[in-house]
């Protein structure tokens, strides 16, 4: 009973969100459904970067590289055998026979398996890369991870047999729908939330605040950074898989600096280190970008949107450097409460170090 009581705000939010999704599904408004799926994918990407960078202060510019690996892995794994033989004739032998395109009833289990395999593969890569790069700090880690992004791009462009190189990779089954996208987004939010208030999360924030002080009380620096980096990489791969099966055809050029900068903008606007802030920042920047895209389309002033978004970003950094929420969280209990909360119990947000 008590557990139910404590989980009540979360349940209410989940129910409300599900109802909204069901309504959207029934409405048949294709544009808004697509936007909602985009929103979910960005929420996952921003939470991934939030974990890797917002929690630890180690700025990663490489997570879109993990997204790219996730997208290609999942897309290749789910190709049906017939398509695969024709489409990717030079695949390595051990990949030739794999086809995770089976479904059980309405559930595409192959898609789920491929997403998880992509996530696992990326976690291994992130573990290796992170073990090396997490030793760096400040902007040097930013540039080194940017180097990783460039390396991934070069490899994707040149590994023709597996990725079709610079040619568009299409024929990806459109598995991603509102439910898969938001289901994974909910998992991403939950993961970030749980991690933030766990011992690992405290260690991440502690070493972000003061490396030497954290070290002096026995908090390892490398380990929490690595955990955050790898967890963020997993989420990025999931986002990549969802993206691949949403957009159904893509090329390596998508996964590069523009997307990286977009995700960074969302995170910085929301507040680096805030789980709820990341969702809010995503919503604001996505809405702004969409509106600007329409203005560009109407006025034919291509480039104006990019300029205004960048100006907005600089203004946030100058006038509100910690974003909308900083490291604080929105208290769900207060959000759904009928009357203002009595100061009986401290919400988890207020216990966050600043």
């Amino acid at each position, binding site marked *: 009973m008590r557990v139910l009581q404590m989980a009540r705000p979360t349940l209410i939010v989940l129910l409300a969100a599900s109802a909204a999704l069901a309504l959207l599904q029934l409405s048949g408004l294709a544009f808004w459904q697509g936007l909602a799926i985009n929103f979910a994918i960005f929420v996952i990407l921003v939470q991934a970067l939030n974990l890797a960078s917002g929690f630890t*202060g180690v*700025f990663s510019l490489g997570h879109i590289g993990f997204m790219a690996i996730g997208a290609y892995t999942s897309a290749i794994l789910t190709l049906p055998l017939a398509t695969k033989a024709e489409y990717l004739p030079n695949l390595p032998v051990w990949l030739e026979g794999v086809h995770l395109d089976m479904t059980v009833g309405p559930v595409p289990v192959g898609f789920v398996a491929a997403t998880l395999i992509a996530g696992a593969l990326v976690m291994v890569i992130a573990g290796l890369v992170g073990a*090396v*790069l997490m*030793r*760096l*700090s*400040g*902007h*040097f880690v*930013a*540039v*080194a991870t*940017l*180097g*990783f992004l*460039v*390396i991934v791009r*070069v*490899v994707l*462009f*040149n590994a023709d047999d597996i990725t079709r190189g610079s040619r568009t990779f299409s024929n990806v089954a459109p598995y991603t729908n509102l439910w898969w996208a938001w289901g994974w987004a909910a998992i991403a939010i939950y993961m970030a939330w749980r991690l933030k208030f766990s011992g690992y999360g405290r260690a991440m924030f502690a070493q972000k605040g003061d*490396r*030497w002080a954290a*070290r002096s009380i026995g908090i390892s*620096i490398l380990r929490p950074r690595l955990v955050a980096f790898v967890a963020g990489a997993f989420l990025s791969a999931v986002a990549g898989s969802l993206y691949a099966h949403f957009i159904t055809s893509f090329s390596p050029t998508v996964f590069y*600096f523009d997307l990286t*900068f977009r995700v*960074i903008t969302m995170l*910085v606007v929301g507040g680096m280190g805030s789980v709820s802030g990341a969702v809010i920042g995503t919503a604001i920047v996505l809405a702004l970008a969409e509106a600007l895209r329409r203005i560009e389309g109407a006025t*034919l*002033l*291509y*480039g*104006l*949107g*990019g*300029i205004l*978004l*960048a*100006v907005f*970003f*600089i203004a946030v*950094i*100058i006038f509100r*450097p910690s974003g909308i929420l900083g490291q604080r969280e929105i208290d769900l209990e207060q959000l759904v409460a009928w009357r203002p909360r009595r100061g009986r119990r401290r919400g988890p947000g207020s216990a966050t170090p600043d």
Partner: protein
Amino acid sequence: MDVYLIQQIVNALSAGSLYALMAVGLALIFGILRLINFAHGDVMMVAAYIAAFSLFAGLPLPVAIVTMIAGTVLIGLAMERIAYRPIRGGPEVAMLLTSFAVGQILQNGTLLVTRLASQPVQIAFPTPDVLSGVVAIGAVTIPRVNVIGFGSGVIILAGVMLFLTRTRTGLSMHAAADDLPAAQLVGIRVNWVVAAAFALSAALASVAGLLYASQAGQINPFLGFSPVLKAFIAAVIGGFGSISGAVVGAYALGFLEVIPTALGGIADILPPGAVSPEIHDLLATVFPSALGSYRDAIVFVFLILMLLFRPNGILGGRAREDTP
């Protein structure tokens, strides 16, 4: 074989000059502000566009070059005043992110201007005659732009070195890079020094932009990304913040980059019978002809190794302030 070797060496020297012009600008700013100015590549791109539009307008080359340098310096000063000064001394990452945003503004601004001028996104660069064609030295033919690029790079860099060590402003930059508050205490006007550093760095980037555009033959608003990354690597190789280190690092990078291109497919270039078939096959396996297209990946692996093992550059020591 000798011809091939000489051509590769000239390529390396010419790329090195280009990277050096860029890397010195990055190192100047980084030394004083601890800011990695990622928009530096976009400044270079804007310079190429100003040059292109000046030449389209029929201006003679010297006038076009002066216009290009003046316009680029103005943009450099504006971005310092508007974007970087308000966050000077702020967190390193905030400054880095701001420079990304400044780069986005320059790219999209260029896109917008070309659009308004009814030009396509990618335009052919009107390479001036001085910079086109080839120079033949015996059996070796070298693109003229590479020779001029190398030569002008050396002359300009020598001038910068003299400026930094022999003039009051140059020495003020050194002082500001060494210890900003102390420089302020002894009466150095920091705002002026920082502005001068941005102006100098923009001027160097504009020369690099002209050379780059003449080499590439066509320009687009996104061409600055790769050169600024290369300049960053050059600066890291030389020890970040050190001006002479940046120059050394840039030429080292020029040679480093040529290696995968030169070695890739070397087995096919060797005259038949020069080596035994076994060695020929070994060379073909170790250095496949595709090696050249992995050049950027190889260079970045090298960057990561440098950051880990020699963060103070090939000239610097092993000390690392970052790791407890």
